């Protein structure tokens, strides 16, 4: 009897391991898609590194200039776009001046999309923000880290005009902004190369300017050494980082909403790993006995 049960149990685990991977795909689709239909509010704990990014911006006095570099494309939108919107809400709430640029061709476009969203907020509308005075979009310039390096000497060298073709000398916000000495903080949203690492290497360590960043979850862990040494004030990591930033601001948005899907998906992955290992150990035990 024991031998028969062992045969059944063995075939059960083997069957489980040999399950068609399309079943696994179906589980993932349901785990991701179903929670999107439910508005579940979850408490989002804030990590110290995200707090670092928030405080770097929060501690700036009104009127401070922030250079915001948007170094990502629409492919990273789910992770970085919520951070972009939260950043603009934070900056405008604290009356900071924002100089937008991008080392990726699509970056400044993503900034404009975030601005369009943020400008619909009543309290932002009430501020009556003006292009060229409160914010400006310099657009994209090709050159990767070379651009970062040259901007340390002169912004006009890399950006003689803004994204709309207006010479920098004619933009009120850019008067007196010659190089990094004239900005109070760099805020970088990065999805790869060129990105936060290049900003640390060519701006922070050469020109000693302060930097706070938001990264995709894939590259966020690699930024922790920079936070530990103080080269980076803080880093927001992936969609969770966006949710943390929204929580700190007190304005929950898309990232907080998506966290329910994220949580269920992670739980499902963990479950798969547990089942796979249970099957593995069970089969190994069978073979040993």
């Amino acid at each position, binding site marked *: 009897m024991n031998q028969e049960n062992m045969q059944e149990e063995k075939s059960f685990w083997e069957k489980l*391991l040999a399950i068609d*991977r399309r079943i*696994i*795909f179906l*589980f*993932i689709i349901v785990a*991701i898609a179903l929670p999107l239909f439910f508005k579940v509010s*979850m*408490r*989002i*704990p804030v*990590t*110290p*590194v995200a707090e670092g990014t928030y405080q770097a911006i929060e501690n700036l006095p009104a009127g401070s200039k922030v250079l915001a570099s948007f170094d990502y*494309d*629409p*492919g990273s*939108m789910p992770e970085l776009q919520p951070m972009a919107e939260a950043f603009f809400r934070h900056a405008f709430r604290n009356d900071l001046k924002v100089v937008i640029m991008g080392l990726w*061709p*699509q970056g400044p*476009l993503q900034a*404009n999309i975030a601005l369009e969203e943020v400008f619909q907020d009543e309290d932002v509308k009430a501020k009556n923000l003006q292009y060229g005075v409160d914010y400006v979009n310099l657009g*994209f310039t*090709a*050159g990767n880290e*070379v651009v970062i390096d*040259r901007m340390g000497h002169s912004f006009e060298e890399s950006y003689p005009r803004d994204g709309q073709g207006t010479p920098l000398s004619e933009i009120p916000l850019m008067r007196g902004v010659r190089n990094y000495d004239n900005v109070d903080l760099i805020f970088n949203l990065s999805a790869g190369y060129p990105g936060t690492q290049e900003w640390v290497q060519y701006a922070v360590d050469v020109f000693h300017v302060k930097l706070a960043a938001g990264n995709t979850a894939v590259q966020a*862990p*690699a930024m*922790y*050494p920079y*936070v*530990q040494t103080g080269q980076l004030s803080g880093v927001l990591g992936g969609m*969770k980082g966006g949710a943390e930033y929204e929580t700190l601001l007190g304005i929950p948005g898309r990232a907080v909403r998506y*966290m329910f899907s*994220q*949580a*269920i*998906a*992670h*739980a*499902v*992955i*963990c479950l*798969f*790993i547990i*089942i*796979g*290992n249970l099957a*593995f150990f069970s089969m190994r035990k069978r073979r040993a006995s």
Partner: protein
Amino acid sequence: MRREVPLVLTAIVGLTMIVSHFIPPFNILKDLFEDWFFIIAAFAIYLGVLNLLRVNADKLYKKKPDAPFGLVVILGFLLITIPGLFFSGGRSFSDPGTPFYYLYIHVYYPLSATMFALLAFFVASASYRAFRARNVEATMLLVAAFILMLGRVPIGDWMTAWLPEGYRLGEWADWIMDFPQTAGQKAIMIGIALGVVSSALRVILGLERAYMGGE
């Protein structure tokens, strides 16, 4: 000539870039070399594109089994290139409202984003089939991954709500990221830095010639 000129070129350019860091007047030459770098990089991209078109045109010419898809590659290339070069307002080609922007948002972006999203499924399938706690090291990797995956979403704190504050899964994830993970990343980072420095020196001094290929 075939090998000597490139070696001398590498040495001159590499040394200029390094020396300009210490002797500022060399920055004029550095800026010039950086601009040439981007011109050559642009041609490198054109080389890749031309090669891609050549390979797919060859498929069509030789009537290979997947020739129709070769045609799709070429047509896809023309679909975005022609509007981008001729019908999208020149240098403001990527501004919202241009045909290029439209194709970018509704063709390129969905394809690109979905290709990356496919990885989510394969990560799940691979985790199920291959992620095994076979030994101590693999178990450590597994446990760290578990703590991070659950600790970084609210589920982790919900599961460990019975523990005192400061000892829940979220805080464990924070501690792992701030200390052991950072230590490992620092070791990797310093190792890579040493590798880059030594490789750069070998390349500039002509000791490393693999980039030139054979012959």
